[in-house]
């Protein structure tokens, strides 16, 4: 089909133009295949324990069993064909940024019930601005104060969401 061909050519043209992160190599795909295979295996084992029932009267485990088997089969295909894929992205030094980002989110979750949302929110916003975003100290401090104040006004004062809070 010629329309299809030109569409594909367009996409190819575009992918060249786009500066994508370097691909991660076959082991990225193979490892993800191993993980999804594990998930499938776990689903299969658990669903057998749930009770499969009959085909005319499926039990709670029947559908998950089918899905688990499907995941396992597809994962094996992915593992075998792992070398074909170039759509992964390499983890590099800059992967540290999302990692730190997740750490701040978890810290927010831990601190929220203990000391209310003001301080954890301020810490979160400030660390994202100053260290993850490389903004100046001035922008980071002003940005933090304004953001937390605005959230207090919107979520606590205006919407009345019962968020744990300090004040």
């Amino acid at each position, binding site marked *: *089909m010629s*329309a*299809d061909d*030109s*569409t594909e050519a*367009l996409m190819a043209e*575009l992918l060249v133009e786009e500066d994508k*992160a370097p691909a*991660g190599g076959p082991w990225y*795909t193979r490892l*993800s295949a191993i993980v*999804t295979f594990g*998930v499938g295996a776990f689903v299969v084992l658990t669903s057998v324990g*749930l*009770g499969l029932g*009959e*085909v*005319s*009267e*499926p039990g*709670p*485990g*029947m*559908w*998950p069993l089918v*899905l*688990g088997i*499907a*995941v396992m089969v*597809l*994962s094996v*295909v*992915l593992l075998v064909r792992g070398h074909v*894929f170039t*759509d992964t*992205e390499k983890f590099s030094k*800059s992967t540290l*940024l*999302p990692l730190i*980002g*997740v750490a701040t*989110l*978890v810290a927010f*979750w831990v601190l*929220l*019930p203990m000391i209310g*949302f003001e301080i954890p*929110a301020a810490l979160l*916003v400030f660390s*994202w*601005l100053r260290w*993850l*975003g*490389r*903004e100046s100290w001035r922008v980071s401090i002003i940005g933090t104060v304004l*953001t937390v104040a605005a959230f207090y006004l919107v979520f606590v004062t205006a*919407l009345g*969401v*019962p*968020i744990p809070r300090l004040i």
Partner: protein
Amino acid sequence: MDFGPMLQGMATVLEPQNLLYCLLGVVVGMLVGVLPGLGPTATIAILLPVIYGLDPVSAIILLAGIYYGAQYGGTITSVLLRLPGEASTVVTVFDGFAMTRQGRAGTALGISAIASFIGGTGAVILMSIVAPIIARFALDFGPPEYTILAIIGVVLVATMGNGSRLKALIAAVIGLVLATVGRDIFTGQTRFTFDILEVSDGIDFVVLAMGIFGVGEILYNLEESLTKPRSPISVSNVWPSRKDVREASGAIGRGSVIGFLLGILPGGGATLASLASYATEKKVAKDPSRFGRGAIQGVAAPEAANNAAATSSFIPMLTLGIPANAAMAVMLGALLIIGVKPGPTMMETNPELFWGVVNSMYIGNILLIILAIPLVGLFVRVLRIRATILAPITVLITLLGVYSVANSTFDILLVIIAGVLGYLMKKLGFEPGPLILAFVLGKILEDTLRQSLRLFDGNVAGFVTRPISGTLFALLVLVIVGPLIFAWIRRSLSSTKKEG
């Protein structure tokens, strides 16, 4: 055709509060589309908690406004910065950015607004005619038909996305697994809950969507944002000349039709439509070499197409309850949350909702074109806001938003976990869309499958022997086998060419 409900729907939309929600949705959608970082699906996902306080009609009008507003917002960044907001505006980059370099950015934005308006409005008109017909046909559907429709939906979305089909299929099946978490409605037994009380009623769709699309995208951008500086651009003279409009008119017409047709198909939607219409324009053009160098048709056609497709993709969701793409899956999830079950009966039971949504699109498109051209200056200024400043604000909105749904700190943890999953999926080449879509369809699929098996007394052949489900089944086989045959023919053709 009975026009009563349609007119009543128009009255619903014209209620001041709904007009306001439509306006709000379009403006928020455009702004977010322009702002760096979040696409329309992520935006809708993050704003899901807002809908809890609204009545269903207002909620869906708001979300629909955000959806097509964001489509246009993505165009602005494609034209001005060569940064497509999402996949459906990718081709606009070729000629749109070329026009910007020639100092014709204003004209490109103006013609996109006009093309979007015509594509969108044309699609709504067709939709008002086609949707009731599909819904009437689907009234005869029973559980077996819905089982097959849901499978077709999952398979199409998994196989027609942008990335690897195999990975998308795995993501989809895992989405189906996630949908089984919680209490089994047939036996009351809990499944895959690990004795965690909070998930005994299942994983909350809002939390999952906000995590995978919202937090996942924010984390992913964290890695990228430092490398992409944005430069300010000045835009003048937004109104296209009469000559521009004349040159673009054919492209807009063709783009609208292609967009409408492809938008109805599950999986492809706006992205495929914009690509196909661009390819068509290149083919019908007298001088194809102008494309990529600022041809106005190269902007007008995909913009008309992606807006028409964005509109017509509502048809399968509203008439069959089967979403055509990830954004529609989020929309369907939102409807289910507020107690509306889209499907063929919706037009009977909830006519004001159905026609309210359809008619809000007329209004939304009008608002879009009224606002788009005068607000271009504002959007250019918004473009200068740095992604690094927006990221902490969006992430905080997400965390507090997800908390506000059930006042539960557990949901915050869940949204973070889903975010990490979304981030890893993006890094490893797994599309998050199929997972969310399958999650939404998962419950429908399992319920109807089990009802059908009871109905057939365990005889699986029943799916094939019932006339309607049998036809749908044949369609399903075609959907799965068709692309494989095409690929095989193409491969064998190219190998004979090489040998010859």
